[in-house]
């Protein structure tokens, strides 16, 4: 219950921050990514503000045994820079530079009734569903050659 309430209030601050920052304006995103044209560097300050504060919080977390409302810190199961990380980031970046939205500002823009967000978000959700569908297919047990019993790969 308390975790749900804190998550809601944190969401409010996050959504407000995104809307204030300019991340919800695709023209600003495309301007920021246009390094060889009319480059608009201001959005780099979003990263500066966010990382400047969160870097300190990460240090604070290291000195505490546990979060205030939860028994444990996040676990980070992936540690290696692998092909999936690289390929996924390439695809994400290409799409970000085409649409001008990353996920959270896209979702907020769709809720605000912005045409571009309303088209972008269902496609984004479809892309996420496509990924999960492919993962499930890979993990599905396959029948062996006798066709008798499915076995796990």
């Amino acid at each position, binding site marked *: 219950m308390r975790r749900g309430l804190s998550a809601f209030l944190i969401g409010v601050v996050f*959504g407000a921050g995104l809307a204030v920052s300019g991340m919800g304006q695709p023209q600003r995103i495309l301007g920021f990514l246009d390094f060889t044209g009319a480059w608009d560097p201001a959005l780099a300050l979003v990263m500066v503000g966010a990382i400047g504060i969160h870097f300190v919080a990460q240090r604070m977390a290291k000195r505490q045994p546990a979060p205030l409302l939860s028994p444990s810190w996040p676990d980070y199961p992936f540690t290696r820079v692998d092909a999936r990380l690289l390929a996924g980031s390439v695809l994400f970046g290409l799409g970000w530079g085409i649409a001008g939205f990353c996920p959270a500002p896209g979702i907020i823009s769709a809720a605000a009734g912005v045409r571009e967000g309303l088209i972008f978000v269902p496609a984004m959700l479809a892309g996420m569903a496509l990924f999960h569908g492919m993962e499930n297919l890979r993990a599905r047990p396959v029948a062996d050659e006798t066709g008798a019993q499915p076995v796990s790969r």
Partner: protein
Amino acid sequence: MSPAVAALVGGALIGLAASALLLLNGRVLGITGIVAGLLGPDAGWRASLVAGMLAGGLAVALLVPGALASTVHQPALVLIAGGLLVGFGTRLANGCTSGHGVCGVSRLSPRSLTATAVFMAAGALSVFVARHVLGVSW
């Protein structure tokens, strides 16, 4: 507020939210992971966070006209292609601008530092090809 000050203030709020979620709930503020988790177990706090995010974003949009507005009007097929790439890519990479770009970079994770450099470079490539090779303007 000038765009630069707005970017810094908005960024600070984003950092504050990520910090509170870590220090209170022990969770990473990664929006694609949170959205993907809406269909799984433990969806409650995720749904609360997304609802709050919409409330906060829409409240600012009411106070600051243009905060959520696009002057770029890509054809629908272009937006659909962009959305598919963003959705599939962020799940494959296990993170987007919030999870890798803010949270992971802040804890100096090599994966997140790499992901952030790669998606920014790929984004720049998209814009370069669209604007300076194909010459599109929408």
